[in-house]
């Protein structure tokens, strides 16, 4: 069984457009997780500040 046929080009040789634009999906899902993790890191920094202030 094959999932994505390689190599395939839709319009031009742009990497993100190769293989039926699957890398756009990869990047979109990656961006969502980067965003959420960035937020969680910010939250943790906030917690650390509270921790420091209550010492």
């Amino acid at each position, binding site marked *: 069984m094959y999932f994505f046929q390689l190599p395939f080009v839709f319009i031009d040789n742009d990497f993100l457009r190769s293989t*039926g634009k699957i890398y756009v999906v990869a990047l979109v*899902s990656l961006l969502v997780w980067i965003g959420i993790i960035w937020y969680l890191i910010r939250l943790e920094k906030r917690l650390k500040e509270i921790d420091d*202030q209550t010492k």
Partner: protein
Amino acid sequence: MLSWWKWAVILIMPYVILMGFLIPLGQGIVQMSPGTIKPGQFTEFKITGYNTKFASGGEIRAWLKHDDWHVQSQKIEVLNAREATLSFILPTFVDSTLSNVDLSLVMDTPDGPLVLPSAVNLNNIKGVIASESIANWSEDKLSPHIESNFNYPFRNVLGETIRNTYFHVPLWFAMVTLFGASVYFSIKFLRNKNIADDIRAESLVLVGVLFGILGTITGSLWAKYTWGSYWSFDVKQNMAAISLLIYGGYFLLKKSITDPDGKGRIGSIYNIFAFAISMPLIFIIPRRFDSLHPGNGGNPALGTQDLDNTMRLVFYPAVIAYILLGLWIAQITNRIKLIINKLNLSN
């Protein structure tokens, strides 16, 4: 011990990612050349498919179709799994008053039908009646095989990016839920003046805005590779941006007021109005205008054109998982904010 709905996030999220990426895309036709044809000429078209299995040996048929009228291909030569040549001789179009007719390519393979809308333009020169004996327009009903594979529908232009339905769209569902929940707590605050409720509302709005920003970023990336540019000033994009700015105002407003009671009261009222304004901006106004975004200009985004049954199997769990994840993050945010408030710490 984690509550059940957090376990739901942990279980559903991997399911969504795995199914979202691993279920194959259905077969489709990407390209057909040449793009114009004259009646009476013998034309050999080269077609390029995606996820097709032309070389598997089953019978392949092809038609050029306009409304109910179609002409069948005289000869089909398979080059490999994704490429084939189709030979057509087209007579002048039945309705000779039309000088230009857009023809769609319809193909039938053992794995199901293939359609390329507006594949060829027929230059219907008036007065020329050619090759009537070789090929004729027919109005017989086409009966291609039914698509039987377990896959996502192939749509031109979209291609594999149809999978973004599971990663971009649920962000907005989650955002609306979070904003809606924050309105509930804002109203609750206005009734009981319990500062904890105002903090709850603020946490929910904060995570809602995070999801909205992520939705806008992922949406514009998706747009770049389907609509052509990151920001095409589409109604949907503009209204989403305006809504996020309105919610940005919520935090500015709360920061600028020092009196804690006034902060809560004005913030809560602003939040209720922000919700009442932003929801029509995002979900109602774009429907009244032409928009590139599905679900606008009259077409419902959750209809069968945009979501088939295989997609629903992943899309609905994705929506649930994103909403619960948003609530989870909001809860953590809220706990930190409550501690800050309780200890009377700065910021």
